[in-house]
């Protein structure tokens, strides 16, 4: 039982990181980014290429995060900036495009990804610590830096922010970049376990969307808690209940969490 909970937390950490990315993008730009999982998948491939070229894992990780930040910001500038109301649809287009490109570049062959954490139940402490560190880092950036302040200003009222001289477009790109970093972390964490292939984030995206939606796509703490909860609940449902129930878990958490926290879905801004 305890072992199963640990495994659930390991899976949940991946969902949590991706859910966090979804919340960041939505909170700062008002868009749910369906391509978040695919950007994370590409980040994992970038990390794999760096490690494959001989770099150490702990050097490849920050380089990948930097690349993910740039790619996220670029995606915002190129894809959603001019789309306005159609931005949501554009992210679905981005999903298809990125997936197809990855298929072309890396093919659908399985690839092994190095795992820096030890195997076994205690190994999940690693992913949890990494997600915790990313959450703390993002909190510090958003709460206590100048860039974070403008981010929050834009999130609170884009028009007022623009009138007071904030370059809203750039701030949106910053939000996408930070989100891509969180997503990259989830991709790199999940890759050693699931093996690299272009479809690797498909299942995680469903769970992450549920976790993010539970917090109204606005509350990072609920999103992270929801991700961990889905991971654990899925594992326990599969082990101790009917295995077919597993697929219902994200939906159940999506419906249950807002009831517990109050508001939830109703707080989704459009």
């Amino acid at each position, binding site marked *: 039982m305890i072992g199963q909970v640990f*495994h659930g937390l390991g899976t949940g950490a*991946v969902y949590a990181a991706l859910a966090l990315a979804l919340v960041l993008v939505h909170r700062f730009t008002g868009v749910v980014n369906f391509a978040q999982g695919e950007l994370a998948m590409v980040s994992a491939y970038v990390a794999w290429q760096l490690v494959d070229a001989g770099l150490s894992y702990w050097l490849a990780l920050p380089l990948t995060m930097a690349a993910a930040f740039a790619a996220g910001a670029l995606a915002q500038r190129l894809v959603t900036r001019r789309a306005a109301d159609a931005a949501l649809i554009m992210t679905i287009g981005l999903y298809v495009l990125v997936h197809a490109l990855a298929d072309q570049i890396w*093919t659908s062959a399985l690839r092994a990804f190095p795992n820096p954490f030890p195997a076994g139940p205690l190994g999940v402490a690693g992913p949890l610590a990494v997600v915790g560190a990313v959450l703390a880092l993002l909190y510090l950036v958003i709460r206590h830096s100048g860039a974070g302040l403008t981010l929050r200003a834009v999130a609170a009222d884009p028009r007022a922010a623009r009138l007071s001289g904030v370059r809203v477009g750039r701030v949106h790109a910053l939000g996408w970049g930070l989100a891509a970093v969180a997503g990259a972390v989830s991709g790199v964490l999940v890759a050693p*376990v699931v093996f690299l292939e272009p479809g690797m984030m498909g299942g995680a995206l469903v769970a992450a969307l549920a976790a993010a939606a539970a917090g109204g796509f606005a509350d990072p703490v609920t999103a992270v808690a929801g991700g961990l909860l889905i991971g654990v609940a899925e*594992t326990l449902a599969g082990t101790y209940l009917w295995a*077919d129930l597993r697929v219902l878990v994200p939906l159940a958490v999506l419906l249950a969490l807002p009831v517990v926290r109050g508001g939830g879905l109703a707080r989704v801004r459009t």
Partner: protein
Amino acid sequence: MRRLVLVALLLVSACRLTSAEVTVSSPAECAGQRADGLTPGKVLVGGVYPLSGPASAYAAVAQGVSAYFAWANARGGVAGRQVEFLVRDDGYQPARAVEEARRLVDSDRVFALFQTLGTPSTAAVRAYANQRGVPQLFVASGASEWGDAAYPWTIGFQPTYAAEARVYARHLLETRPHATVAVLYQNDDFGHELLTAFEEAVAGTGVQVVARRSYEVMDADVQAQMASLAESKAGVFLNVGTPKFAAQALAADAAMTTWNPLHLLNGVANTPSLIAALGPSALRGVLTTGFYKDPVTWETDPAVRTFADAVRRHVPGADPSSSQVMFGWTSAAAFAAALERMECPSREGLMAAARDLRDVEIGTLLPGITVSTGPGDPYPVEDLRVFRFGDSGWEAV
């Protein structure tokens, strides 16, 4: 045979004939049968494979088929006919597979569909092929349903998942008659067919299934399932996963020091990409089954040499050491055998020949394994051998 022709004729009359339909006029017993895409000097054949998308690794099968036909054409063709092989991409999506099959039959006017790949795409194309009366030969899927008499225009090729399960059961009964078995399986028709057949084969013997856990194709990983199966302390682990999940299970098994079962890897998962991703240390001692010669282990075999030379010459982009290329080559050889044995030069004649192959030998099949069909036996290859992963790759047990 006569009943088959009758059924075929009924099907033909049931569907709307287009004006360009080609029928046979002689010999008399073949009169009225259809032969689109077939002339004395040429035969047009179409195949639908996942060249893109999540299953695109199987595109290697199409390369093996192309290599075989190119090789046969260079030697004068199959029974004097040059084979023109059209390959289409379904991205592993059943709806696209039907669309491509329709295009091949209606606009390219192929004589027969040689291979659709995967159970979903094959099942989707089957309805169309049978309604239209087009042979759908030697499909690349191990489901038992391709032997269904309700679909006379469709026939499988490789041993069924059930046949494979019975080989594992037989091997265990011989080597470990009191084994306890833990099973990881994909929660769909593929997983259920293999698991059910295995359980039936060991029922009433000393071999016992003590734990079973399933996963969904949408799941991220199978870590939790593996942890719970390990608690059973079973002596044998039966891995009924598709390549990605089977690889995860193999890696989890290799990482666990407290549970070291005999690992049985199902044949679907035994792909070059899985072996490359895991490396030899995670695979050592694993058992699997196969029915054709592994191009690496059998490198010096004359038939395998012919295969490797032909692949290098005719399909330079293909990997002659890939078992999937070899699978395509071997199934294409069976298709050629059916073409050669046609009594009537028609679609009906091809199906009749495919359903009446008597112990046809193919050089790249393992010794003692033949392609054999007949009345009441719609399964071309039914035998498998057990292999263990050792220092030189898959070694015969």
